[in-house]
C-alpha cells in the first residue's frame, strides 16, 4: 500500500536517477525531462557502485532536497555472484544516504519478490521469491527500508516491454525481434501462460507520479490484465504485418499464470491509465523499425 506525503502534485527540486543508462532508468529520465523535472541521470560512468569509494562519490553528487530513483541493478541476477554484487550496490547507496540524506527515495524492484503461487498478486501478497533475482530485489527492499535515510517508495513492475529493452527474454521483446526478422516464434508449450505485460513508459509515468506526491510504501506496477504468451505472439505478428509462424512445442513445465489486482494503484492514482498492450506494442514495433535488433 502506498501513501502520499503531498496530496497535490509537486515537482521535486531535482530527481536523481541512479541507473540512468538502463532500459528502465533511461525511460524514467526521459519521462522526467519531458515533464520539465530537473534530472541528474547517473550511469556507471559517473558512479560505479561496485567500485571502492562509490558511496562517498555518490554522496558528493546528492543534495538534501533531491528525490532519488534507484534503478541500477545487474539484472537479471541469476547467480550468487550477481546477487552479492547487487547487494553491494544497495549497500553503497545506503552508505551514501547516511552521509547525505535526501528528501525521497524510490526503489524500482520487481514482482519477482512474490511467491509463485500468489494469484492475483496484490501489495499484500506473500513475498517469497523463488529466484535469485527475486531474492535480490527482496533483500534490497529490506535493506533500504531498514537503513536508507529517506521516505521510501518501492515499485514492483511486472514484465516490461519496450523498443529499447536490451534483454531478449521470452515474451513481447523477443517475439517482436523475431517477427521483425521474419523468423518463427517458438512458444513454451502452446504459450498458455498468462502474464501482465507493462509498457516501460508506464513505469516511468508512475515513478514520476510517486515523486510528485512524495509517496511512500509499496506499489505494484501492472496493468491488471493478463494475457497468454500465444496471444502476445499473435498480436506482435499482426502488428509487424509479416507472415511469421507461431510454433508450439512439447510442454516441459506445468502451466502457471500470474494476474494482478491493481486496486491499490487505482486508489493511489485514480487518473492514471495504463497503456493498453496493443498500443504499447504498436509503439515498440514502430520505434524499433529499422533499429538494429
Amino acid at each position, binding site marked *: 500500500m502506498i501513501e502520499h506525503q503531498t496530496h497535490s502534485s509537486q515537482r521535486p527540486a531535482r530527481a536523481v536517477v541512479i541507473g540512468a543508462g538502463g532500459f528502465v532508468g533511461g525511460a524514467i529520465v526521459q519521462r522526467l525531462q519531458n515533464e520539465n523535472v530537473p534530472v541528474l541521470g547517473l550511469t556507471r560512468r559517473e558512479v560505479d557502485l561496485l567500485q571502492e569509494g562509490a558511496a562517498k562519490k555518490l554522496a558528493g553528487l546528492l543534495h538534501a532536497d533531491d528525490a532519488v530513483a534507484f534503478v541500477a541493478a545487474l539484472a537479471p541476477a541469476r547467480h550468487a555472484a550477481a546477487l552479492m554484487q547487487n547487494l553491494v550496490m544497495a549497500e553503497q547507496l545506503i552508505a551514501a544516504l547516511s552521509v547525505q540524506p535526501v528528501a525521497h527515495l524510490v526503489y524500482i524492484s520487481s514482482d519477482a519478490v512474490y511467491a509463485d503461487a500468489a494469484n492475483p498478486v496484490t501489495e499484500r501478497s506473500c513475498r517469497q521469491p523463488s529466484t535469485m533475482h527475486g531474492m535480490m530485489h527482496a533483500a534490497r527492499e529490506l535493506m533500504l527500508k531498514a537503513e536508507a535515510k529517506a521516505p521510501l517508495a518501492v515499485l514492483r513492475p511486472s514484465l516490461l516491454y519496450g523498443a529499447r529493452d536490451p534483454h531478449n527474454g521470452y515474451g513481447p521483446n523477443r517475439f517482436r525481434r523475431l517477427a521483425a526478422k521474419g523468423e518463427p516464434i517458438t512458444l513454451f508449450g502452446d504459450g498458455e501462460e498468462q502474464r501482465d505485460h507493462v509498457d516501460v513508459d508506464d513505469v516511468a509515468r508512475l515513478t514520476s507520479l510517486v515523486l510528485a506526491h512524495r509517496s511512500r510504501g509499496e506499489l505494484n506496477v501492472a496493468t491488471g490484465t493478463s494475457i497468454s504468451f500465444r496471444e502476445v505472439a499473435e498480436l506482435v505478428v499482426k502488428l509487424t504485418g509479416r507472415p511469421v509462424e507461431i510454433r508450439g512445442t512439447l510442454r516441459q513445465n506445468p502451466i502457471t499464470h500470474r494476474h494482478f489486482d491493481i486496486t491499490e494503484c487505482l486508489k493511489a492514482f*485514480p*487518473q492514471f*491509465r495504463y497503456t493498453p498492450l496493443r498500443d504499447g506494442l504498436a509503439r515498440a514495433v514502430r520505434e524499433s523499425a529499422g533499429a538494429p535488433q
Partner: protein
Amino acid sequence: MTSPTVGFAGLTHLGLVSAVAVAAKGLRVIGYDPDQDRVRDVAEGRLPVLEPTLDDLARRFRAQLAYTDRVGDLAACDLVYIASDVPTDDRGQSDLSGIASLIEAVIAVLGPSTLLCVLCQVPPGFTRKVPLDPARLYYQVETLVFGRAVERALKPERFIVGCADPGRPLPAAYAAVLGAFGCPILPMRYESAELAKIAINCCLVASVSIANTLADLAERIGADWHEIAPALRLDRRIGPHSYLNPGLGIAGGNLERDLATVLRLSAAAGSEAAVIAAFVENSRVRRDWVLRLIHREVLPRNAAPTFGVLGLAYKENTHSTKNSPALALIANLQAWPIRIYDPAVPADAVNHRALHAAPSALEAARGSDALLIMTPWPEFRALSPADLAAVMSGRVIVDPFRVLDPAALRAAGFSYFTLGAPPLHDAEEV
C-alpha cells in the same frame, strides 16, 4: 413466581430491540441508559435506530416499557441484561472499557438475588471475569441482524446461554423470560457460549466468502451465480436460508469483530486459522469491486463522468454506515462529481469535494453518466428503466445486488453490471 421484571442497561440498537421484544411477550421492562437525551427521545417515541416495525411495536407495548437514566431504577428488576454497544476500531478490535464500567455501575445497584446477563458481544473469557456470584451471572448470545432485528428478536431460533454450571437449571426468573419465546434453550459454559456467537458469524462469513469467490469466477467465465445459488439452497447440507448472496465484502462491524477475535485468540493459542485470514482478505478485495469496475468499464471511455450513488448505508433498512462499501467507494471517487441519495443516511456522512445531495433516487440519477446502486434499499426497485433513461446522461448501471431487472435495463439501452454474472453490454459500448 410473578411475572419477572426485566432490565436492559444500554438503550442501544441491541438493547432497544431486545427490550421491546421482551415487552411484546407481556413482561414488564425497564430500559436504562446514562444518556439523558437518549432516554427522553426513546420515552417520547423518537427511537435512535432504524429498524422495520420497531417504532410500531414500541408504541403498542409502551405501557410495559419504562425508560430511565437512573441506574438505581434497575434495582427493581429480577434480571438485568447488559446491552451496551461494544465499539470496534478499524481492525475490528473491541473496546471493552465502556461495557466494563457499565457492568460495574449496574452490579452496584442490583438486589441480592437479581440476575445479570451479558447480552452484548464480548470475547471468550470475558463473562467469567465479571465480579458477581457465578450463580447469578449469565451470558446470552445475541443474533441481532440489522434490518431484520425485530423479526429475529420476536422469533429467535434458539437461546444460547452461557452459565457457570450448565448442569444446573436456570433460575426461575430467567427461565420465565426465555420461556416466553417458545424456542429451544441451550445452556453451556460461558466460554462455549461466547465462542458459539463467533462460530455462528464465522459460518455466515464462510458462506458469503464462498459466494463471493465463486460469483467472481462466474463473472469471468460466463456463468451466473444467481442461477447457481437456488440450486445450492435446495441442498439440505447447505440450506434454504444460507448466506449465498454475493456482496461487497463484510460490513457492519460485528462480523469483522469476530474474525479479528478468532485471529487474535488463535495467534495467542497457536491454533491454525489461515482460513479466517483468507475471509478477511476476500472481504477486502470484494469491497472494491465497484471501484475496479469503474476503472475498467467507465473511465477508459469517459474520463470526466458524473456518478450517481444510490445508498450509503452498509445494508438496506439501517442507517449504519460502519465499513460501508459505498463510503469506501466514494472516498476513491474524489476526482469526479457525485450525486448521492440514501433513504436513511444523511449526506453529511459523506466526505467528498464535489458532492450533490439529491432528494430522491431519481434525482441522484439525473445527469449522471453511471449510476451506482451501492445499497439494496427496497425503494430502489421502483426505479424504471424508462425514467432512468430519461434523466441520466450516460447509460451505465452498476447494480451489485441486482436490485433492478437486468433484462429490462438492457432493453432500455443500458450497459448493466452486477455481481456474479458477466456484464450485459455490447463489446464497444459503455
